[in-house]
C-alpha cells in the first residue's frame, strides 16, 4: 500500500477531518481511526485506477453521511454529550417542547411545590407550632412528585407509566403519616432520612423513562444527580445572600421580616429550588457541566491523604476508636463519600483510556477506606453485642455493610483494571448496577423498621 502523496487530496482530507472535528460526538482518536479508514479506502480505490478526487468522493460516500455517523457515535458514546441525547433524542422530539414552554412548565411546577408546602398550614399544621416533624417527614413528598411530573412531561412518557410512578409516592405519604411514631423517636428520624433516598429512585425512573433496566443510561442519572446537587448548593448560597439583605433592609426601617423568611422564603425556596435546579441542569448544563468530576479530582487525593494519615496515627498511638452514636453515622458518611468519589470519577472517565496515576490514587483511596471502615465496624460490633440493637444501630450497620460490599468489589475490580486484567467498563457497570440497592435498603428502613422496633 502506498502512502497517498497528492496535495489537493490531502487538502480535501484535511477539510473532511475539520468537519468531523466540529461535531461533539467525535473525539480525536475516533477521527484518527476514521481517517485511517478513509486513507486505506483511498489507497485501494486509486490502485483500482480511480483518480484522486474520484476516489475521495467514493470513499467519503461509503463512509456514510456525517449526520447519521455522528448520531451513531453519540448513541454509543453518550457520556460525551449526555445532555443533548437526553434532552432531545431526535430532532422530531426537540421541536415539541421549546425552551420557552419548558421554562414556564418548570416555573409553574416550582410555584406549585412552593404552594404545596404551605397548604398544611391552612389545616393548622404550622412548622413553628409543634408540627416540625410533620414537615421533616413529608418534606420530600412536597417536591419530588412534582419533579417526577416535570420529567414525565419532558420525556413525553405515557400516562400509564405516570400512574406507576405515583404509587411509590402515595405509599411513602401513607407510611410517613400513618405510622404512630413516638415523638422524636429514632424510627421517625430514620424515616425522615431514608424516605427521600428511596423516592429518588422513582425520580430515576421518571428521568430515564423506561430505559432504566435497558442500557447503561443510569450513569446519565448519576451525572444529573451530581449536577443538581451542585446547582442546589449554589442556589442555596444565593438564597442566603437574599435573606441577609432582606433582614438588613427591613430592620433598617423598623420592621421584623422573620415571619416572611421563616414562613415563606426558606420553605418555599427549598422545595422550589429542587425543580428550578433540575430545569437548569437539563437546560443549561454547558455552564458548569463538569463540576462534579472536577470536585472529584480535587478531593480524591485529599481524602486519600486524610485516610492514610488517620490509619498511620492510629497505628502509631494505638488509641482505639471511641464508639459513640455519631461515630456510627460518621463512618457511614465516610463510605458514602468514598463511593461518591468513585462514582463521579467513573461518570467522567473515558472507559477506554488505560489506567493512569489517578486510578492508582482511587484504588488507594478505596483500599484505605476499607481498612478504616473495618476497624470502625469491629468497634461498632463490639458495642452492639454489649448494648444490644437499636433502630439507629441496625440502620447504620446495614448501610455500612451495603457500602462495604460495594467498596470491596470495587477495590477488587479496580485492582484488576490497574493491573490491566479487566476493563474499566466492568467497574462502571458494577457501580451503576448497585445503585438501586441503596434505594431498596432505604425503602426497607422506611417500611419495615418502624413496626419492627415498635415506633420508638
Amino acid at each position: 500500500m502506498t502512502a497517498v502523496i497528492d496535495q489537493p487530496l490531502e487538502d480535501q482530507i484535511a477539510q473532511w477531518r475539520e468537519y468531523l472535528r466540529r461535531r461533539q460526538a467525535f473525539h480525536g482518536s475516533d477521527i484518527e481511526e476514521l481517517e485511517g479508514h478513509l486513507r486505506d479506502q483511498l489507497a485501494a480505490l486509486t490502485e483500482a485506477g480511480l483518480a484522486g478526487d474520484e476516489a475521495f468522493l467514493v470513499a467519503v460516500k461509503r463512509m456514510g453521511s456525517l449526520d447519521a455517523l455522528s448520531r451513531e457515535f453519540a448513541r454509543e458514546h453518550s457520556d460525551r454529550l449526555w445532555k443533548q441525547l437526553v434532552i432531545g433524542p431526535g430532532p422530531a422530539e426537540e421541536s415539541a417542547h421549546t425552551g420557552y414552554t419548558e421554562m414556564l412548565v418548570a416555573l409553574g411546577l416550582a410555584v406549585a411545590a412552593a404552594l404545596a408546602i404551605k397548604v398544611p398550614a391552612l389545616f393548622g399544621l404550622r412548622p413553628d407550632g409543634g408540627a416540625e416533624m410533620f414537615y421533616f417527614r413529608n418534606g420530600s413528598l412536597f417536591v419530588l412528585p412534582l419533579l417526577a411530573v416535570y420529567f414525565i412531561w419532558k420525556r413525553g412518557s405515557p400516562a400509564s407509566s405516570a400512574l406507576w410512578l405515583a404509587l411509590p409516592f402515595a405509599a411513602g405519604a401513607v407510611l410517613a403519616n400513618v405510622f404512630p411514631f413516638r415523638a422524636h423517636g429514632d424510627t421517625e428520624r430514620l424515616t425522615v432520612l431514608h424516605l427521600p433516598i428511596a423516592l429518588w429512585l422513582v425520580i430515576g425512573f421518571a428521568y430515564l423513562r423506561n430505559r432504566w433496566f435497558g442500557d447503561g443510561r443510569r450513569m446519565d442519572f448519576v451525572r444529573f444527580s451530581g449536577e443538581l446537587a451542585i446547582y442546589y448548593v449554589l442556589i442555596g448560597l444565593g438564597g442566603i445572600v437574599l435573606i441577609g439583605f432582606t433582614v438588613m433592609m427591613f430592620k433598617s426601617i423598623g420592621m421584623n421580616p422573620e415571619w416572611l423568611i421563616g414562613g415563606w422564603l426558606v420553605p418555599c425556596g427549598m422545595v422550589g429550588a429542587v425543580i428550578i435546579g433540575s430545569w437548569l441542569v437539563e437546560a443549561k448544563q454547558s455552564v458548569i457541566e463538569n463540576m462534579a468530576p472536577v470536585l472529584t479530582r480535587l478531593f480524591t487525593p485529599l481524602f486519600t491523604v486524610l485516610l492514610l494519615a488517620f490509619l498511620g496515627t492510629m497505628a502509631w498511638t494505638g488509641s482505639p476508636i471511641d464508639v459513640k452514636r455519631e461515630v456510627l453515622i460518621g463512618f457511614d458518611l465516610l463510605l458514602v463519600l468514598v463511593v461518591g468519589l468513585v462514582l463521579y470519577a467513573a461518570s467522567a472517565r473515558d472507559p477506554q483510556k488505560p489506567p493512569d496515576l489517578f486510578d492508582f490514587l482511587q484504588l488507594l483511596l478505596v483500599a484505605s477506606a476499607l481498612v478504616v471502615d473495618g476497624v470502625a465496624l469491629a468497634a461498632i460490633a463490639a458495642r452492639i453485642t454489649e448494648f444490644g440493637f437499636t433502630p439507629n444501630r441496625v440502620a447504620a450497620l446495614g448501610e455500612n455493610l451495603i457500602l462495604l460490599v460495594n467498596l470491596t468489589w470495587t477495590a477488587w475490580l479496580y485492582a484488576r483494571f490497574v493491573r490491566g486484567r479487566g476493563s474499566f467498563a466492568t467497574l462502571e457497570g458494577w457501580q451503576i448496577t448497585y445503585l438501586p440497592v441503596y434505594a431498596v435498603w432505604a425503602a426497607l428502613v422506611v417500611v419495615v423498621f418502624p413496626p419492627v422496633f415498635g415506633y420508638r
Partner: protein
Amino acid sequence: MDMGKDLVAASATPLVLAILAEGDSYGYAIIKRVAELSGGHLQWTDGMLYPVLHRLERQGLVAAKWSASESGRRRKYYRITREGRAQLAAQRQQWQVVDGTLRGLWMQARTA
C-alpha cells in the same frame, strides 16, 4: 440485494466477533472481509462499523490497541476477548435456531 436495516444491525455483532475470532484485525480490513465473504451482498456504510466496534469494546467483548500500520500511520487493532468468544458462541446458537426455523419453513413451502 438490499438488506433490511434491522437485519444488518442485528448481524453486525456476530459478524465482527466471528471475523475477529479468525485473528486480530482493524476496521477497514473487517469491512473488506465482510464484503468478500458475503459476495458483496452485505454492504455496510463504512463509518457505521466503528460505533459497533466501540460498543463491543465498552462491553469488554473485544480489546483494542493502537499500533503502527505498514504505511507508518497509527492504526487501531481489535482483538476478541474471552467474553467475546463466549458471546460469539451464544449468538451462534441463536442464529442457528433462526436459520433452522426459516429453513424448515421454506423447505415445507417448496415441497407443499
